[in-house]
C-alpha cells in the first residue's frame, strides 16, 4: 500500500527532539498510511525507539509537528504542566508493545487485558472479560487467563501484552523490538501473532532486528541513522538494493548471521 492509497494516520513534519543538548531526532518527516506496516531499522542508539515513543507521547518533542489520527500531539513546552487532554485521546487509540513486555505483575492475565477497556473505555466488567477471553484465544492463551504474568514464559507474556493493547481496539500499533528480550525458540510465536495482525490490515510501526520477518510483512522500511531517516524503500528494494552506503553496511552486518 502506498501513501497515496490510504489516508495517513501518522503525519510527522520537521520533527526535532533533544535530550538536553543532545539532538536525538533531526528533521524527521514521515507519514504512515492506514493499513500500512512500516518497519524501522537502524543501528543501536540511532533513535528508533525515541521515534516510535514520540508517536504515543511517551517522549516529548521540541519542534516540528506530529499528528496522530487527526490529533496534534502537544509539544514539550505545552506539556510542562502535567496531563494534557489531547494526549490521552491519542493514546487510547494507539497500542504499544514494549521489549520488556511491561505487564502489570500484581494483576492476573485477564485483569491486565481488561484494565484499559474498563477504566478508559468505560466497558462493563462482563463485556470487557468476554472481549479479553476472545483476544486471549486469538493469541493462543485462553487457558492462562487466571495466571499471573510471572508464571508465564517470555513469549507468552509478550502475547498477553499484545492482547492487552488490542483490547483498546487501537487504530495503530507500535512495537519496540518486541522479540529482542525473548529466547530464540519463543520469537516465532510472537512474530506469528504480529503476522496475523498485519494480514488483518492493522496499521503498525515496528522496530525490529528480525530482517526476514521485516521483509515478509512490511509495506515499507525506513532506515534511521543518527536521528535522521536516511532511506525509505519498499522491502524488496531495501534489502536487495539499498541506496545508501550506511544502509548497505548495516545490512551486511546484520544479515551475515
Amino acid at each position, binding site marked *: 500500500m502506498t501513501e497515496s492509497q490510504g489516508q495517513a494516520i501518522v503525519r510527522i513534519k520537521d520533527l526535532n527532539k533533544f535530550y538536553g543538548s543532545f539532538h536525538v531526532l533531526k528533521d524527521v518527516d514521515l507519514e504512515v498510511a492506514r493499513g500500512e506496516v512500516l518497519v524501522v531499522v537502524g543501528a543501536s542508539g540511532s533513535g528508533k525507539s525515541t521515534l516510535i515513543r514520540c508517536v504515543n507521547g511517551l517522549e516529548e518533542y521540541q519542534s516540528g509537528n506530529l499528528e496522530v489520527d487527526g490529533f496534534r500531539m502537544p509539544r514539550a513546552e505545552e506539556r510542562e504542566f502535567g496531563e494534557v487532554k489531547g494526549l*490521552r485521546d491519542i493514546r487510547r487509540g494507539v497500542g504499544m508493545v*514494549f521489549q520488556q513486555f*511491561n505487564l*502489570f505483575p*500484581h494483576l492476573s492475565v485477564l485483569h491486565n487485558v481488561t484494565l484499559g477497556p474498563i477504566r478508559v473505555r468505560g466497558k462493563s466488567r462482563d463485556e470487557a472479560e468476554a472481549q479479553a477471553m476472545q483476544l486471549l484465544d486469538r493469541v493462543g492463551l485462553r487457558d492462562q487467563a487466571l495466571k*499471573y*504474568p510471572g508464571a508465564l514464559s517470555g513469549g507468552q507474556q509478550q502475547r498477553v501484552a499484545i492482547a492487552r493493547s488490542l483490547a483498546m481496539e487501537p487504530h495503530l500499533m507500535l512495537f519496540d523490538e518486541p522479540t529482542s528480550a525473548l529466547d530464540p525458540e519463543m520469537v516465532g510465536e510472537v512474530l506469528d501473532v504480529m503476522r496475523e495482525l498485519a494480514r488483518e490490515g492493522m496499521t503498525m510501526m515496528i522496530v525490529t532486528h528480525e530482517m526476514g520477518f521485516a521483509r515478509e510483512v512490511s509495506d515499507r522500511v525506513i532506515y534511521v541513522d543518527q536521528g535522521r531517516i536516511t532511506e525509505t524503500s519498499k522491502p524488496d528494494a531495501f534489502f536487495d538494493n539499498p541506496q545508501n552506503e550506511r544502509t548497505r553496511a548495516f545490512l551486511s552486518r546484520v544479515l551475515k548471521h
Partner: protein
Amino acid sequence: MTTFAKSLRWLHVNLFAKPFDTGLTLIVLPLLAWVLWGFLDWAIMLADWSVVLSSIKVLMTGLFPVEKLWLVWIALCLIAGLTGLASSTTMPFGRNALLAALALVALSLIAAAWFDTISAQTALVVASFFAVWAAGSRSETLRANLTGIAFGVLITVLLVLSPAGPSTWGGLLLSIVLTLTAALLTIPLGVLLAFGRQSRIASLRALCTGYIEVMRSVPLILVVYCIWVAFPLVAPQFPLPDVVRGLIGFTLFYSAYAAEFIRSGLQSVAKGQTEAAESLGLSDMDTKRIVILPQALRVAVPGLVGNILDIFNYAPLVFIIGLTDFLRAGQMILANPENSGRTYEIYVFLFLVYFAVGSVITFQARRLERKLAQGARK
C-alpha cells in the same frame, strides 16, 4: 531415620558443628538454663501475682469509668474481629485454628470462673477474633474490603469509647487505640506525602520534602509536646482533649516515616509500568492507584509494619502530655505504697504483654510479606 537419630543430627548441625560452635553452646546453654531456672523459681515460689490481678482494671483501661466498662468490651471485640479479618488474608482458617479457638474460649471461661477479675467477656473477645477469622476465610468480599472495614472499625471504636470521655482512656486500651489510629492514618497520609514529594509541581514537592525532612530530624516527644501546646493557641475555638492532640502528634510524626517507606516502594516500581499504563490511556490517577501504588506498597510493607511496632512501643511517651498509657499505669500502681514491694511482678507483667502484642504484630507482618512475595514473582 529414627527420631532420636534425627535429634542427634539436629544437635550436631546446629549446636556442635565446629569447635567454636561447641564452645559457644557449652557456655550459652548452661547460662540460659540458669537464668530461666532463676526466673521460674522466682515467678512460682516467691512472686505474688495478686497485685496484677487486683490492679488489672487500671493496667488495662486506666481511669475508664467502671460502670461503662462494657463499652471497652465492645471495642475490644471489634478490634479482635479486625485482627481476625487481617489473619484471614494471610492464613486460611483451618482445623488447627478451630481447635485453638475452642481451647482458648474454654480456657478463658474457666479462668473467668476462677478469678473474678477476669470476666467472661474475655471469652467473647477471643470468640470474635476466631469467628471473623473463619468468616474472612470463607468470604472473598470481606477480605477484599479489608482497608475499608479497618477504617470503619477504627471510627466505630472511637465512637463507642467516646461516651466515657477521651480523658479517661488509659492503660493498654490507650496504647492500642493510639496504635490503631496512628497506624491506619499514617498510611494514607504517607501515600499523599510520597506522591507529593515526586510531584511535577515544584511548590508541592518542596512542601512535602520539607515536611518529611523536618519530622524525621526532630524527636517524637518534641512533636507530640509541641502539638499539645500549640493546638489550643492556634485553634482556641476547638478545645480538643489531650488524647486527640496526642493522636495528632503521633500521626503527623509517623506519617513522615511512612512516606519514606512508600517512596522507596514507588522508586522500586519499574518505569515501564507507568509507560505501559499511560500507553493504555489510563489517567494519571488510575495509573498511580491501580498500577503503581499496589506494587509500591508491597515493597513498603516491612517498613510500614516496623512503623506500627514503633508506634506501639513509643506510645508510653504520651505521659509527657499527662496521659496514662500501659507502662504509666503500671508505674501508677507501684506508686501506691500498698504495692511497694511488687515492682518486679508489675514490670514482668508489662514486659510479657508488650512482648506478646509485639510478637503478634511481627508474626502477622511476616505472613503478609511472604504472601505478597508470592504474587510478585516476576
